[in-house]
């Protein structure tokens, strides 16, 4: 079941930005998305390590390009969310393959998928809401807030890195 879901998510990760670019007439950007998606599907089938991380960066970059080209690229947040989900499911599947399949493993699988669904839904809603809102800020305030955000994020990431083994 997990493998099937992963294939579907990878397929959608490639389809949505390709469709988004195609609908705005940016065919030279749509075709590479399709190619990357096909590559990712083949790489997943062959269990190539590290490919998922590369594809995550590639599709987030594609979403970024889409947002830069058009402010109303509503397909961009789903691209990021689906790319994150596919990257996560690939890693999770690899971890499950280390162990014997059992009733307990299926329970872990089920809970993981529900958790991912919840996180993906929440992050998609927030991203769409953020894209839809318009705030007028001074350059200085915007830069200051940005600097604070980056500083805060650094602290959080450092703390998280210490927490993890």
């Amino acid at each position, binding site marked *: 079941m997990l493998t099937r879901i992963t294939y579907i998510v990878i397929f959608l990760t490639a389809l949505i930005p390709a469709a988004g670019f195609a609908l705005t007439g940016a065919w030279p950007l749509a075709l590479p998305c399709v190619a990357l998606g096909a590559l990712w599907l083949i790489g997943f089938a062959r269990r190539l390590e590290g490919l998922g*991380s590369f594809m*995550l*960066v590639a599709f*987030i970059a594609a*979403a*970024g390009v889409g*947002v*830069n080209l058009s*402010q109303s*690229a509503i397909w*961009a*947040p789903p691209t*990021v*969310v689906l790319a*994150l989900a596919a990257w*996560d499911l690939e*890693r*999770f599947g690899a*971890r*499950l393959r*280390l*162990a*014997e399949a*059992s009733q*307990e*493993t299926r*329970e*872990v699988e089920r*809970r*993981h998928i529900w*958790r*991912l669904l*919840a*996180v*993906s839904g*929440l*992050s*998609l809603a*927030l*991203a*769409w809401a*953020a*894209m839809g809102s*318009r*705030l007028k800020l001074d*350059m200085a305030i*915007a*830069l200051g807030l*940005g600097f604070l*955000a*980056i500083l805060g*994020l650094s602290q*959080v*990431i450092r703390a*998280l*890195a210490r*927490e*993890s*083994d």
Partner: protein
Amino acid sequence: MGRLVLLAGLVYGLLLIGLATLNGGMLALALPIIVYLGAALIYAPDVPKLQITRELSADRVQADAPVAVKLSIRNESGQLEEVLVEDLMPRGLKLIEGQPNKVVLLPPEKILEITYTVSGPRGRYEFRQVRVTAADHLGLFRREVLSAAPGSFIVLPQVPKLRQVMIRPLRTRASTGLIPARVGGPGVEFFGVREYQTGDPLRWVNWRVTARYPRRIYSNEFEQERVADVGLVLDARQRHDLQANGDSLFEHAVRATASLADAFLRDGNRVAMLTYGAGLNWLFPGYGRLQRERILQALARVQTGESEIFDSLDYLPTRLFPPHSQIVIISSLCNADLATLIRLRAHGYELLIISPDPIAFEGASAQADATLALGARIAQRERAILLQRLRQAGAQIVDWPVDKPLDQAVLASLGRVPKWARPVR
């Protein structure tokens, strides 16, 4: 950790690009990644506290026999959402059934059981630790602990059955056995004639001799059969550990030692064992099943080794063996060993050498080649000369091509000692 760095890099990248281009859409794209990180942080696991016990279905088995391993793991910490439990198997074991790893959700106080079956060649196998990695559901934060879960089992060598091995040490012990003792008394084999003593059965009377001496009666005397002291010496020097086609000459030597120990102990003899390789490992003499078990366990653990001191047999501690007892050496032999073995004979020890043939062992796997064939013939001649010189020194030799059973080789080489070869005291 790598995944965390990647996500952090993506968030920073998107924020910086968004700020640089004053594009709010880029900042919005960073939100899903931040939510993902936040969810992982909220559900980050505590350090797992687990109580692990291990059960093994046997603590001693024969080679390649299956052993079932059962681990019981009790969670004494909070809920662990995604736990990978890996039992670290000792090297050399082969997995037959089941898996030593499991990925589970472990609520508090829940007991998880992992069962699998392994087998392995001769040796001692020790289980030490179980690695437990707890992670959140999104796999960003991991806590890894190594918990002690000791357990061990020993795989004994095979013991091919051997018929009685004919030995004749100069000195025997007092107990009744199967070895002719060079002393007259109750027995089976005719030993000599002596004067009649009160109590001798009538059937012992030698009428022919008695007829020659009218005033005296003579009885037959028989050779007593007793047990003896036997010292087994297994040559565990690295140079004799030849490998070919997945087979090892040393393993044949180990099995031969096990068979000999079994045969001698079965006949009631007192058997000791010495392994000579990287060091000396000495097993005190003993009788019966307990000694057999000790010898098999020692053989299960023995490994070849290299040592500059014990490179030749010069340092063989002969004082460990009772004087004039039987020494059985299991070794492929080399020319440098000749002097030591002759010295052993000079000290009065009876020597029996079981020598696995290394040339036949390697020759069977080597490709047909004129140079190799010539080299093999030269090596065979040198070996034949060495064995001949040992025979001349009075040692009994069993030149054993290991593709044949040891029983056949022993029977062919030793058989029954002819009467004329038996010295009488």
